[in-house]
């Protein structure tokens, strides 16, 4: 009886072991896709409250004006509201004298401010989170 059970179980165990490996194959595919990302992209992005993602390049203007890099149609935003630039290996945000101001983690910024992962950026009444590409899933929690 035990032998029969073990004979059946060994195929199940091997199956699960290879399922585990298959999942790591998927991880590697994602890794390779990340390496091939657009050369202009910095690997950072802003995620809005509604889940929309705005990838960041080395210079990004944000505002209501249609020639902004990131166009946000919101009456509380100025037409040229804020600027995010690449500096060194990080990203710098600065306010372009907007009417309603740019807030990082609840504080209105006056000087250019260096963004850290998971910083909360508020423009007008829109809220964004500053993230890196690969840390995507962690903020959203489990998808299981």
């Amino acid at each position: 009886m035990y032998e029969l059970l073990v004979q059946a179980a060994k195929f199940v165990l091997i199956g699960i072991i290879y399922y585990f490996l298959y999942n790591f194959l998927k991880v590697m595919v994602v890794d390779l896709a990340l390496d091939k990302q657009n050369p202009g992209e910095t690997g950072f992005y802003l995620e809005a409250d509604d889940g929309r993602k705005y990838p960041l390049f080395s210079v990004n203007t944000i505002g209501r004006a249609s020639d902004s890099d990131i166009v946000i149609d919101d009456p509380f935003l100025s037409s040229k509201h804020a600027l995010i630039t690449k500096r060194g290996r990080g990203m710098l945000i600065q306010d372009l004298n907007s009417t309603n101001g740019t807030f990082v983690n609840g504080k209105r910024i006056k000087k250019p401010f260096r963004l850290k992962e998971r910083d909360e950026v508020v423009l007008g009444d829109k809220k964004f989170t500053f993230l890196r590409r690969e840390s995507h899933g962690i903020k959203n929690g489990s998808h299981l």
Partner: protein
Amino acid sequence: MELKMEAIYNKTLSATALIGFIAFLLLSLKTSPFSPVPIYGAIAFAAIMFTGYFLSNSLLYGQDSALFILACFITELGLIMLYRIDPAVFMKQINWFALGVLAFILSSIVVKYWVNLKINPLYFFAITVILLLLPLAFGVEKGGSRSWIQIAEYSFQPSELAKITFVLFLAGKLKDGRIDGVLRLAAEILAVAGLLAMARDLGGAMLFYLTALALVFAATSRWDLTAAGLAASAAASVLGYFLFGHVRVRVEAWLNPWQDVPGRGYQIVQSLFAIAQGGFFGTGLGLGHPEYIPAVATDFIFSAFSEEFGFLGAAALIIVYFLLVYRGIKISLTVKNSFLALAALGIVTLFGLQIFTIIGGVIKLIPMTGVTLPFMSYGGSSMVMSFISLGILNGIRLNERRQEADG
């Protein structure tokens, strides 16, 4: 697609836990009358793994979760085999596993906030030498090599810790991409390898030496030094063969184990029989005969594993080790600080060479040397130090990301 990362990791964690429950349930059914004790083992393992995973993910934002999951997967297969071989050994090993997970998180945090102090590599060298001298002075002999220190009932292998300090020493020496004083560096490396050889830990001496060679090549890209180093190691092997009796025994057992099956060739022959017995799918858990294999809980755990999980299981295990090495090299390539990049590369190289040495040894690809299979063999210092090495790799990645964010 990145959205799926966390989901994939959760699937692998669940698969790992499921393997544990099925395997330990089988082990429960094997004991007659039915005993629930193995199931408790599976529950303890799953509890430690999930606690460690969620704790490390919440404390260390942006860590490389794959390192931890792969290590847990290997540890679990090791724990299943250890329970199968001897439940008492399993009880000790699961405590070491818990301690290892804790050490993984702590070392990640320490390395993450490692301020780049200008520590003279000479200090790391001194620590390495002291660690290797300790067992020569106060050590006890176990399994033919004098590399253990016994304190009360606990024994500890300082050479496991010396691996990390040695890699840090080399990374500090080579971080500028050139060598000031080739002869001095060669003398220092040979001194470390010589100390290990004096403790009759020739496998360890070979690992340290080849790691040093790999790091020198990675840092300086000089073929002449690498070729000279390889030639010197070949000369040292020939010298070792004629100088040390036990090297000759090992090499002869490797060249022709069938000449003296009950004597010198016994270990390797039993190991080969066990692997052959396994076939493609294995004999099934609990139906093999690990009791025939000598040193089955430590050096030959891979043979016992391939007997019961078959060629497919053993191949999967080797792939998992490859994946760990791949993640490590990936970290080392992304790091811009040359000291940390070399340290990461050194740790990965040592890890990969160790796996090659022991698996190659038990399948008679190369002569058998007594090094442990990381995460799988029974042994507290090996388990904890392997987790610390991974923690350092993880910490190097986090350190790099922290500096990216701070400028």
